[in-house]
């Protein structure tokens, strides 16, 4: 246990890096994912095909491969980014198709009858979308989006394998130095992760129950 207490500042540094990776790549993934989702439901065929291809390819590529590319192949291609920035780019790209799918399933989840009913009482396009469809899509989208961010939290640990000193890397470094207390050291790392993932999970479950539209 004293190995954990002695290294608490180091742990907090790693936790800060994990939070930084989570927040910055979370926001970036939200932006890219929204663009991809908009392309995917747009009436323009070429954009739709591009978005579908992008989603399929990125989603079926292992994250380790993506971050390997950022850490080892990008420098060979001439990039001068530091490892943390490169990892943020990799995590954003990897997470974006999952964001896009969550958004798309939210919009697709609103039954057609809702829009039909809105039009049948004389609503125009902006009223149908703004007053009827989007509010319902938004409610159905938030819980799966939170789940995407939970997955992202856990995925930031992979960056620890590629020179970024975040929680996982801190755990590995401390465990290598103090081989006698590996269990306590790694459980402390796990606790920091649970500090982010469990509250987010409870929030998702709560919103899911409260916001789900009863049909």
């Amino acid at each position: 246990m004293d190995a954990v207490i002695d290294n608490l500042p180091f742990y907090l540094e790693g936790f800060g890096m994990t939070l930084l990776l989570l927040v910055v790549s979370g926001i970036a993934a939200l932006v890219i994912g929204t663009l991809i989702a908009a392309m995917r439901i747009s009436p323009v065929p070429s954009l739709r095909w591009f978005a579908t291809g992008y989603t399929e390819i990125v989603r079926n590529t292992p994250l380790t491969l993506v971050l390997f590319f950022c850490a080892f192949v990008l420098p060979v291609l001439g990039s001068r980014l530091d490892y943390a920035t490169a990892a943020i780019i990799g995590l954003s790209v990897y997470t974006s198709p999952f964001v896009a799918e969550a958004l798309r399933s939210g919009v697709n989840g609103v039954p057609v009858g809702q829009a039909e009913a809105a039009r049948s009482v004389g609503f125009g396009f902006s009223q149908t979308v703004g007053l009827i469809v989007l509010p319902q899509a938004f409610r159905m989208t938030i819980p799966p989006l939170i789940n995407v961010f939970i997955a992202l939290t856990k995925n930031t640990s992979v960056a620890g394998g590629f020179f970024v000193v975040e929680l996982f890397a801190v755990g590995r470094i401390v465990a290598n130095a103090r081989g006698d207390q590996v269990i306590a050291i790694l459980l402390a790392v796990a606790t920091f992760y649970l500090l982010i993932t469990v509250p987010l999970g409870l929030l998702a479950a709560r919103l899911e129950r409260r916001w789900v539209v009863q049909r």
Partner: protein
Amino acid sequence: MTSVLFDAPGPVARRNSLIASVVGAVAILAGIAWLYFVLNAPRGDLPGYFDPSRWEPFTEPLVWQRLITVGVWGTLSAALTASVFAIALGIVFSLLRSAQTAWIRIPTAIVLEFVRGMPVLLMMLFILLVLNTGSFWAVVAALTLYNGALIGEALRAGLAALPKGQREAGLSLGMRPMQSKMLIEFPQAFRQMLPIIIAQLVVLLKDTSLGYIVGYVELLRVSMNQLASFYGNYYLFSFFIVALVLYLTMNLTLSWFARWVARRTQRRTGMKAPNPDEENEELLRAKAIAESKQTPQGGIL
């Protein structure tokens, strides 16, 4: 979706859509062409990345032999072993989690919550350092635990979403609760949740590459560490592209299979099978159903 939001597009709207489509296609192709020329531009005295000299190692059969027999096989054997164990563990988890005794149900729920909230990579490191299993079993055990927890939740949701009459019919025939569960309910729940389980196995297959970080010899390590270091940085990009193509081939095949099973399940049972593309959302919805249906006297075992 779009068509019910506004009137059917007339000739002008259709023409505009066509123009936008062509402009979009040109922009995307221009982007791909730009990427190609940037990569293919000479680097100092060295040729571009698509120059034939950069791909020379792939003319040697030995390279392919290593990629396939050590790399792909390492990835597939870990994934296959972990899949079998994960499904078995998932069945056990779903039974324990829906047990009638609170002494079994609540600790299982806590364990599941713990396992699901932790990175798989951290579990691999933990098993590797604490249990000293060697990297193959560290990878397999961590993937089994994590995916077993998720498959367990999916199965539990599938059990809870079955019509109540299925169990009542079994009991009325004189079956014990456990018999009815294993003979009547489980086969149906398993079939209903098969697409989600296969989609989860795609995630498992992808996650075997985490073994690279804990030193397991799989496709990523063979291609990028062993072969690329042996042949030198000159070929790094080429090896990366080949590794990417091999991974995409395996994962896309399994994804396609998951979708095929989903379509087939839907046709055979007439019930809407969960779409593996929307795994997260469907799993959540199934869980919400499971929770709302879980009455105190509902759980048996």
